[in-house]
Structures are given as C-alpha cells and as structure tokens.
C-alpha cells in the first residue's frame, strides 16, 4: 500500500485525484454511485456571483477520442452553493476546490472574498471558452491573467488560489509565470481547447454555441507537454489535467511535474473512472517499489 497523499500549497489530499470542474457537479450525483470521500478532492461546477442559465442545447458533441462541450457556466450562484451544497460537501472529508468565474475583475475579487475561508482551494476559471464575456477573455494574455489573479488574491486572506490556465494561448510558460508573479499559490492546466464539430447534413455546428471546449483522451499528449512546460516555468505547484483515463495517464502528468491531477471527461466514459485511477495508482506504485506517489512528481528525464 503506497502513500498516495499529496500536498497542494498547504492542503493535504489523501490522493492526487481531483474531479475536474464541470464534470462532477458538486459531487452529489457521483456520491450515489460510489462514496466520493475516497477522492482526493473535487473541483466544483464553475460558480458565479449570480445564478447563470448557461447556453442553449445541444451543449455537447463528440469526435474521435474527444468530446466538445459548451455548457456556458450554468450554475445556481455562489450563495446557493454555500447554503445548499457546501455544508454537505464538507462532511465528505475531501479537498473542496471552488471553481469560480466572473464577468469583470471586480466580480472575481468579490466571489473570492465570499468563499475565502469556506473552501480548501479556490480555482480561478479564467479559461472557460464557452461564455461570451469574462472567462477566457481574461485567460489569453499574460497582462490580463496577472490583473485578474491580483484582484482575486486581494479578496483572499486564508484560502489558497489556484489559477486555471487556458491552452488556447501563445505561450504556457509566459502565462504560468504571469499567474505566479501576480500571487497565484498554484496553477492548474489545461482547460479545454476551443473546437468545432459540424453536422454536415445540416451544414451547421452541432453545438448551439457553435464552438465548444475539446476534452478527452485525444488531447492528452498536448496537455502533458503543456503541464511539463508550466511545471518548469514556475516554482508554485502545478495540477495537471487533460484526457486522463487511467492511472498510467495520471502518472505521466505526475512525472511531467504535476503534484496532483484532475479527471473530467473520463467520468462520462466510466462513472467509476476516478476510484479506478486511485486504485491503479496504488497498484502501480506497489509494483514499481514506489513508496509514495509524491516521489514520482517531476521525475521525468528528457532524451
């Protein structure tokens, strides 16, 4: 039995597997299938100050080894989350990562202020490709990443800040350093790649929003490369994600420099993907004489 614990800026997780934002809601539905307290953590559905209706349907499409989604930040608003879901989630003994978004820099600050001290980590969603204002607009340029990170940080006294980076950018290292320089305690990447899938009979995009965020197994090699670049650009911890389906996939991210991973699309392919990944990590470590999963982090040797 290997030691699977990992630490992200002072927060100890019982294992490095976190449910990725938008794929696990607030945890309740998956808890009907397995006890979610066995997870390292979950990142909530993206929260905003006010409730959001999200985009029209269809919100999802499929490609080869990928899916596209454009839900558009539908959520009940941060107050309802705090009143209805957070108390329950806190009884589960996992790291609660609140994923937050705003339309303006001030909204990012305000929602961080509201959640400060209530959750374990706040994940700044500056890379949502599916909303018209805010979201990704902040996540493209290093200057705006720094500005929104600084604003969010100004609303936080107790809870560490994780900035989620977009892959739809010119330079991951430059953007990672911008977040770090502005006070991010850690970063996570990658969010989805902006894509389009077309219904050729109708000559229209399948998704009502026209474009959607591409995720799933097919993006994994790009995500691994980006996580490697980010981990080597900054001194703060990096949480990696993008197409993880198995324990072996997760180990690639750990070796590339991530201290923990998030699992998203795989939950749709197999509702028990995360418990299986956690069990697989343990087995792999045991089989390879690795005593602690943290020993794997950043151990990649380049050719």
């Amino acid at each position, binding site marked *: 039995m290997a030691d699977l614990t990992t630490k992200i800026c002072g927060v100890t997780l019982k294992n490095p597997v976190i449910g990725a934002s*938008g*794929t*696990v*809601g607030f945890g*309740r*539905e*998956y808890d*009907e*299938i*397995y006890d979610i307290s066995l997870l390292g953590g979950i990142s909530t*559905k993206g929260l905003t100050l006010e409730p959001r*209706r*999200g985009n029209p*349907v*269809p*919100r*999802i*499409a*499929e490609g*080869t*080894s*990928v*899916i596209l*989604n454009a*839900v558009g930040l*539908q959520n009940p608003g941060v107050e309802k989350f705090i009143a209805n879901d957070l108390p329950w989630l806190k009884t589960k003994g996992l790291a609660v990562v609140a994923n937050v978004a705003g339309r303006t820099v001030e909204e990012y600050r305000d929602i961080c202020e509201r959640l400060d001290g209530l959750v374990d980590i706040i994940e700044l969603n500056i890379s949502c490709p599916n909303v018209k204002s805010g979201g990704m607009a902040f996540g493209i340029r290093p200057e705006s990443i720094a500005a929104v990170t600084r604003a969010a940080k100004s609303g936080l006294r107790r809870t560490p800040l994780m900035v989620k980076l977009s892959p739809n950018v010119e330079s991951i290292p430059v953007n990672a350093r911008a977040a770090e320089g502005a006070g991010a305690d850690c970063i996570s990447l990658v969010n989805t790649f902006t894509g389009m899938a077309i219904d050729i009979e109708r000559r229209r995009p399948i998704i009502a929003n026209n474009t959607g965020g591409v995720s*799933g*197994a097919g993006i994994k090699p790009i995500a691994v490369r980006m996580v490697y670049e980010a981990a080597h650009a900054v001194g703060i911890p990096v949480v990696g994600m993008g197409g993880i389906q198995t324990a072996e996939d997760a180990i690639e991210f750990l070796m590339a420099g991530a201290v923990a991973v998030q699992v998203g*699309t*795989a*939950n*749709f*392919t*197999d*509702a*028990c993907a995360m418990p299986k990944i956690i069990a697989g990590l343990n087995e792999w470590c045991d089989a390879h004489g690795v005593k602690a999963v943290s020993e794997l982090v950043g151990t990649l040797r380049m050719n």
Partner: protein
Amino acid sequence: MREVEGVVLSNCAVAAGIYEMRLLVPDASDVRPGQFLNLSSGEGELLLRRPLGIARHSEDCVTVCYQVKGRGTKALSCRVPGDRLSMLMPLGNGFYVKDSERRIALVGGGVGVFPLLSVAEAYRDREVSAYLGFRNRAAICYEEEFRAVSRLTIGTDDGSVGEKKNAVELFLADYEREKPDVILSCGPPVMLRALKRAIAERGIQAPCYVSLEERMGCGIGACLVCVCDLTNGEHARVCKDGPIFEIGEVEL
C-alpha cells in the same frame, strides 16, 4: 443507479435501421418503466455513452432499441453476443401511474415507442391503449409485443399500414370513446408539440407525461449538458429530473 457491466445476449435488426439489443446485467429488478441506461458503444475512441430507453426488462435482463444514425449507434450495431458493455443503470425518473389511473393511453412515434412498451408491460392490470405512429411498413416494430399487453392502433405516414395518421391523430380520433385517466407519450419533438397543442385545444383534462430526449454527457445530472426549459423559466436536467415531465411543465 449503478455502474455495471452487461453481456450482450442478442443484437439484431427489428425494423429498417432499428436494432434491438438484449443485455444480461447483474440486476434489473428495480427498473421502472420509462427509465433509461447510459450504454458504452464498446468503441474505445467514442468517449460518450449512449442514453437508451429501456423497452423491456426482467430480473437480470434489459432490452434497449436504437436507430442506427451516427458513429455510436453504428458501433453498437456491430456488437455480438458475448460482448461486454459497461453502463450506468437505471437512470431517470420513469413513468409513475397512480392506482386510480385505470385507463392508460400511450402515444408513441418512431423510436419513441420503445419506452412505452415498458409501461404497457409493467401495468398489465390496467386498460392500456397504444397509439403508435411509424413512417411506413418497414419501420414498424414490436407490433406483437404491444398487441399482447394493449389495445393497439397503428398508423403510418404513407398509409402502408393502418390509417394514414400520426400517433397524435390516432389518439385524438379515439379520445372521446376511450377517455383515458392518464396519457403517456414519447416521440419526436414535433409530435410532442402537436400533442401539447391538441390537449390545450380540446381541453383534455387527463394528466399527460412526456419522455424527452437530449444529447447527454454524464447521464446522472452532474454535467448540466442535457437541460430543457421549464415553463416556469427554470432549467431541468433531462437525465436526472426527467426524462419524464408533465407536458405543461416543459417547453417543447
């Protein structure tokens, strides 16, 4: 709901482009009529499962039917007996028929007829009338199965079998005589809209419940991909809050 692995018992065409797949599962005794499962296509490169209404079930077997339309259903049609497919089941709220509702009208169009068979088979002690519309003779399926558990009226778009009427027209033509206590429906959006209009125009008082379809992600209510609009302005999740809704409660 649970994550299980099923074994394909049979998988064959039952009408033009329509397949019936029977799966052996650990337990299907708690399946309600109108519920669905989210089934892997068995193709590793397709990451999304396919939500399919359960047409029939026994203690350890579920039957689903699907129209071969895209890559996922094409892949499903290639599965052979013995293949193992993972799935989440049973999902959704299902149809509930009150004890006082003795006369049930089923209004189904095309592939929407399948979840209705599960109702007719579950409520054998009621008087069930089924009004089913198909495109043409080649599209008709489950005629014998429905006839065994309901008073069946079939119509086709081209008049090749039965009257040249759709399911809603068949239902309306019979309504005054049958006066059902409850109306349950599943079919394409255009059919459900026609039914909603007809109920309003005719002042039909019997409650009516419809089963909706939408492209889904998780199938369990977590990802908010498959929402529909309620008439009160709220969103509902088709997979978790539905797929069955009271017809006046949803925008169609």
